[in-house]
Every structure is written in structure tokens, then in C-alpha cells.
């Protein structure tokens, strides 16, 4: 059986990689995908804990996280389409009208 | 050596089963193309392939050789990785779906390497969900193929195909929920077992399509079956829902820029998906491997139905072969006919000879399963030959505005009736 902290370290590594992609990438869609990667890392931690404690509440919460991520992806991609339509570019440095 | 085999018996048997299943499925695919061409041709009052080999039976082999030797051009400006990934993905996913399909209930009557060998590769508690997961992933093969081809026709065809597939996935999944409510399990073996309690033991009545069980009439899943089969035809991009790959519309849709072997991979993926969906339709709605006749002693003559069909068919093939035009046909067809006759006779001899009796009993569920799959494959081909194509907006309207509400209504009705029955 695989010890639980192996899963948690994998979750931390994936979260870190998602954070790196979030900070360093310039394409809006790729930034959005890194958010999904971070959510997945958190899901992995939830399921690992659910197995460790022997209760299924962790897995139920994972289902809710997946549903919320789906709703967020739908609305977020709608916003991204609007940004592309208004700014003709998917570069996040061009979306800086609120910058001082 | 023997001890190594015996310790890893599970892995070795699984690998051999996978290889055998792939071989059988690819052969069935090839002859399914022959079957389709022949049936569509006869519907259209023409002959279909009848030159290559007797009755055109070697046409699939000729097609396979053609695919292997044809020139394989790669268009300029394609994204190399995605272009090569798409057909590979489509084929792999289609073939993976066959791993969870059970072909019979009992293991082989003898033990191999000390292990019982069952007629499935994976017995899973969530077999049905695995099939839905693979259906969901197979959208990628088409979407990526359309995009990677660097061509307007392909991109539009790919987008239309994948939009159609994800729309009909919803109706597909909802139409199965009625069956799940009646079977209480996701495992395919469990769903078949739940259909085993027919009224008066008369097998066909217990199937989910009629659902007349010993406990009373549950909700017959007729609407569910019609929604499922229609969504499945749309899901596999077959006629009458094949606008994205119709030749007069978008050249060839998402597989325009794919030639020879890569096109063959898409082709095999589509036909394997047809076979998988037919297997699923029989398992979910028509009792899988269950015989339509009761298991009582009066009806044991139905155990010889395989022989009763094979023996006259073999004799007819021999008769047809003797009078065939070409010499090759005069040799091959009687041989094939004789083989069929021999198999039928051997199974019939199980009346008297004990080991052949176990073989006959073992063949029974597999025969019924195969027969039902062939009926559904014939429906697929029949629909292709008969029905006109739906226009794309009509297609999307049917998917969202007709099938989805009807399948949700089916779920609500089934749940209501099951709840009412459990209360009364």
C-alpha cells in the first residue's frame, strides 16, 4: 500500500507547478489551465485523506470541487472569448487598462 | 519455466486474452465493412463487392492491403505531434472500451495454468462508467484531427463532429440511468444478472426492454432503448447523423487530410465503436447473454438452436459453392460450408456425448450474445442504407430539444414507478 504522504507530496508538487505556470505564462488560456491544475492537485489531496481516514466525505467534496471547476471553466472561457474579441490578443499583458 | 508460468498465470492469461480479443475484433471489423457494403448495396438494388473472392469475401483483405501500400502524404503546416496523435488516440480508445465487455457468464470448462479463465478481460464494479469515460475521451480524436490538419474543411468538420458527439453524450448517459435504477449496480455483469428474473422464467420478458419480472411489471425501458440507440448512432457519427463526414458536404470532414493507414485507423475506430455500442445495447436492454427462452426442462431443445442454425446454413453454403462461377469459389465456399456444418454437427452431438455437451452448454450464452450483437449491427447498416441525412441544425435540435428531455422524462418515470412498487 502506498503511504499517504507520497500522495500529499505529489499534490504539493503539482500545486507548485500550477502556481509556476500561473505566474510565468502569458497566454490567458494557459493561465486558466494552470488554475485547473491547481484544483486537481487539491482534489488529489482530498482523495488521499479520504483513503487515509477511511471516510468518503473527502470523495464527496471532490465531486463538488469538480462541479464548481466546470462552472468556473464555462464562465471563464466566455470571458476569455470576450477579451479576445475586444483586445484582439490573448496576451495577458495587453489586458492592462486598470494599470496605474 | 512451468513454475514461472504458473506464478504469473494471471498476467499471461490476460495478455493472451487481449491479443485474442484484438484479433477477433479486428477481423469482425473487416467483415463488418464487407457486410455493410453488401447490405447497403442490396438495399439499393445492386450487388456490392462480388469479384474479389467468392461473394466479395476477400474484399476486406484487398482493402487492408490497399491501405498499407497507399502513399501517405502529410500536408504542409500541420502540427506534427497532434496530427500523428489524433488517429492513434481514436483507435486506442475505441479498442480499450472492449476490455470491460463480458461475453459470457461462465469461465472456460477447463483450467489454464491453474486459473479459471473468464470471458472478459476486466470485471469491474463500474464497468458502465468506464465505457462512458472512454466515450467522453473519444471526442478528442476527432477534434484534434480536425484542428491539426491545417485545413478549413477539416477544422469545420472536426468542430461539428465533436460538438455533435458531446451533445449526444448527454442523452446517451441519461437514457441509461433507467437501467441503472433497475439494476442497482454499474457493473455490466450485475446488470445482466438483474435481468435474469423474468416472469414465469420466460427469459425475454425479464429483459429491460420489457421488464416483466417475478415481482411485477417494472417500467419497460423502451423509450430508454430508443433514446440510447439513436444517441449511439449520433455518437459514432453514423448515418443518418453523419453530416460531418459526408462527402458532398465537407469533402470528408475531419479525416480529409488523412490518407492510407491513418485513415484506416479512424475507420477501424468508427466500426469498433459501432460494435461496442451494439454490445452495450444488448447488455443494457436486451439481457446480454441471457437466452430468451425459459431454463426449464421442457425448453432444453432451445439449447440446440446454434446447431439448428449452423447445419442448414453450412449445407446451403456448400450447395451455393458447388455452383459458383470461379474455381476459387468452388473450392473455398464448400470448405467454409463444410466447416460450419461440422461445427453444427459437433454441437448437436452433445445430445449423446458428454464432453461435447459441456461445450454446447458453454457456447449457449456466447451464441445468444453474438446473435443479438449481429441484429444491432444489422440495424446500424439498415439505418445507413435507408434514412436520409439530417442537416446539422436539425441534428443538434434533435439532440438537445428532443432526446435529452425525453431521456430525463424516462428517468423520472422509472424512478417514480420503482418507488411506487417498493412502497406498495
Amino acid at each position, binding site marked *: 500500500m502506498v503511504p499517504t504522504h507520497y500522495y500529499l507530496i505529489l499534490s504539493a508538487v503539482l500545486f507548485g507547478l500550477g502556481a509556476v505556470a500561473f*505566474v510565468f505564462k502569458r497566454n490567458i488560456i494557459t493561465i486558466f489551465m494552470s488554475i485547473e*491544475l491547481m484544483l486537481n492537485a487539491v482534489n488529489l489531496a482530498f482523495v488521499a485523506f*479520504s*483513503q487515509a481516514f477511511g471516510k468518503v466525505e473527502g470523495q464527496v467534496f471532490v465531486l463538488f470541487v469538480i462541479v464548481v471547476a466546470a*462552472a468556473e471553466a464555462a464562465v471563464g472561457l466566455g470571458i476569455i*472569448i470576450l477579451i479576445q474579441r475586444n483586445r484582439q490578443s490573448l496576451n495577458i499583458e495587453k489586458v492592462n487598462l486598470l494599470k496605474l | 519455466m512451468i513454475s514461472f508460468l504458473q506464478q504469473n498465470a494471471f498476467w499471461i492469461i490476460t495478455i493472451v486474452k487481449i491479443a485474442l480479443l484484438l484479433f477477433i475484433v479486428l477481423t469482425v471489423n473487416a467483415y463488418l465493412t464487407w457486410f455493410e457494403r453488401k447490405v447497403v448495396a442490396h438495399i439499393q438494388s445492386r450487388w456490392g463487392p462480388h469479384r474479389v473472392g467468392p461473394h466479395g469475401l476477400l474484399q476486406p483483405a484487398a482493402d487492408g492491403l490497399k491501405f498499407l501500400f497507399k502513399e501517405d502524404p502529410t500536408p504542409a503546416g500541420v*502540427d506534427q505531434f497532434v496530427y500523428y496523435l489524433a488517429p492513434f488516440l481514436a483507435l486506442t480508445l475505441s479498442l480499450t472500451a472492449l476490455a470491460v465487455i463480458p461475453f459470457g457468464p461462465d469461465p472456460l470448462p477447463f483450467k489454464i495454468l491453474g486459473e479459471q479463465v473468464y470471458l472478459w478481460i476486466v470485471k469491474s464494479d463500474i464497468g458502465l462508467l468506464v465505457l462512458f469515460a472512454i466515450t467522453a*475521451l473519444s471526442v478528442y480524436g476527432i477534434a484534434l484531427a480536425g484542428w491539426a490538419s491545417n485545413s478549413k474543411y477539416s477544422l469545420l468538420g472536426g468542430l461539428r463532429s465533436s460538438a455533435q458527439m458531446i451533445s449526444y453524450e448527454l442523452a446517451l448517459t441519461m437514457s441509461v440511468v433507467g437501467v441503472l435504477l433497475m439494476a442497482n449496480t454499474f457493473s455490466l455483469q450485475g446488470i445482466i444478472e438483474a435481468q435474469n428474473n423474468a416472469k414465469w422464467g420466460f427469459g425475454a420478458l425479464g429483459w429491460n426492454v420489457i421488464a416483466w419480472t417475478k415481482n411485477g411489471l417494472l417500467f419497460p425501458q423502451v423509450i430508454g432503448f430508443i433514446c440510447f440507440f439513436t444517441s449511439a448512432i449520433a455518437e459514432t457519427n453514423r448515418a443518418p447523423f453523419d453530416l460531418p463526414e459526408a462527402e458532398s458536404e465537407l469533402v470528408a470532414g475531419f479525416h480529409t487530410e488523412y490518407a492510407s493507414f491513418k485513415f484506416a485507423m479512424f475507420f477501424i475506430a468508427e466500426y469498433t465503436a459501432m460494435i461496442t455500442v451494439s454490445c452495450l445495447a444488448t447488455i443494457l436492454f436486451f439481457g446480454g447473454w441471457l437466452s430468451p427462452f425459459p431454463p426449464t426442462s421442457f425448453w432444453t431443445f432451445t439449447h440446440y438452436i446454434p446447431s439448428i442454425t449452423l447445419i442448414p446454413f453450412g449445407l446451403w453454403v456448400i450447395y451455393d459453392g458447388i455452383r459458383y462461377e470461379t474455381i476459387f469459389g468452388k473450392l473455398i465456399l464448400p470448405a467454409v460450408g463444410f466447416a460450419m456444418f461440422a461445427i453444427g454437427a459437433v454441437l448437436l452431438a452433445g445430445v449423446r456425448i458428454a464432453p461435447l455437451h459441456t461445450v454446447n452448454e458453454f457456447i449457449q450464452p456466447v451464441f445468444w450474445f453474438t446473435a443479438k450483437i449481429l441484429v444491432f449491427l444489422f440495424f446500424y447498416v439498415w439505418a445507413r442504407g435507408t434514412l436520409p441525412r439530417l442537416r446539422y441544425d436539425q441534428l443538434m435540435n434533435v439532440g438537445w430539444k428532443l432526446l435529452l428531455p425525453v431521456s430525463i422524462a424516462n428517468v423520472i418515470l422509472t424512478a417514480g414507478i420503482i418507488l411506487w412498487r417498493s412502497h406498495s
Partner: protein
Amino acid sequence: MAESLVSPALLTFFVLAGLAVLGAGSLVLQKHPIHSALSLIVVMVSLAGLYLLMGAEFVAMVQIIVYGGAIMVLFIFVIMLLNAGEEEHTDFSQLAKFAGLPLAFALTASLAALVFKPDAGVPAATQAFIPKATEQISSMLFKEFVYPFELTSFLILVAIMGALVLAQREKK
């Protein structure tokens, strides 16, 4: 055959975990958004494999069907429709590159170190799988968590309406 040091479960874990990390790394390093999307699909499928390894079969299949089969398809559609090209090279502050990456490693390492402490509060798992997890999930979804479950349906409805409104063409 002698008992090997690495049990099949551990070997499967390392294969799937390696695949997940490779996919995530590829997401960071690829230039074209479609390659990043494909790498994210690889991550999701390998995570589904890990869920299966932990015995959470229903969650694994839901992950593939919903995340891998619906959300990522949406991403790929948007990338195709918006014709997102490769990333152009723009100026980057050197501080971000030289201080940011080490800080990211430091964040990950500190999270990992927290977990490795012996009294981290994570009990050793008593059993490999939770038996009948699917039944327990379904009974929990409809008994204790029925209120959040129905609320998610409203959430999805709101998201659909929002996406429809956002993606409308302007009325001339």
C-alpha cells in the same frame, strides 16, 4: 520469485505520479496552448489512475468524464476557435526568473516537508480501499449533502446563463 522491494502498488504509483509530473512540467514549458491542454489531459488521466489506485473508483471515472471529457474539450474548442497561436517572446523581468523559480521550489519543498513530519496528524491508512465507496458516496450525496448537491445544480444553471450572455454577439 523473490519478494521485490517495490510492490506492484508502489510501482504503479511511481509510474502514474511520474506521468502526472511530466504532464504538469510540459504544461509549463510548452509554447503552444494546445500542447499545454494535451499535457493537462495527461495529468488528469494519470490522476484518475491514482484515484483508482486508492480505491476511489467513482471519483476516478467522474474525473475522466467531467474534467477530461467535458472541461478540457471546452478548453480545446476555445483554443481552436480563437486560433490561439504560439506564445510570443516578450520582455520578462529578470527578478521574476531568478527569484521566482527558486521561491516556487521553496514553496513546494516547505509543503512537502510539513507532510513528512512524523506527527503530521495523518494516520496510516488501515485498509487499501474503502469498501463500497460508490454506495456510500451516493447515500451521502442524497442524505447529508443533499443541500449542497441541489445548490450545485443552481450553480451550473447560473454558469450556463452567464456563459450564454457573455458569448453573445452584440446586437446591431
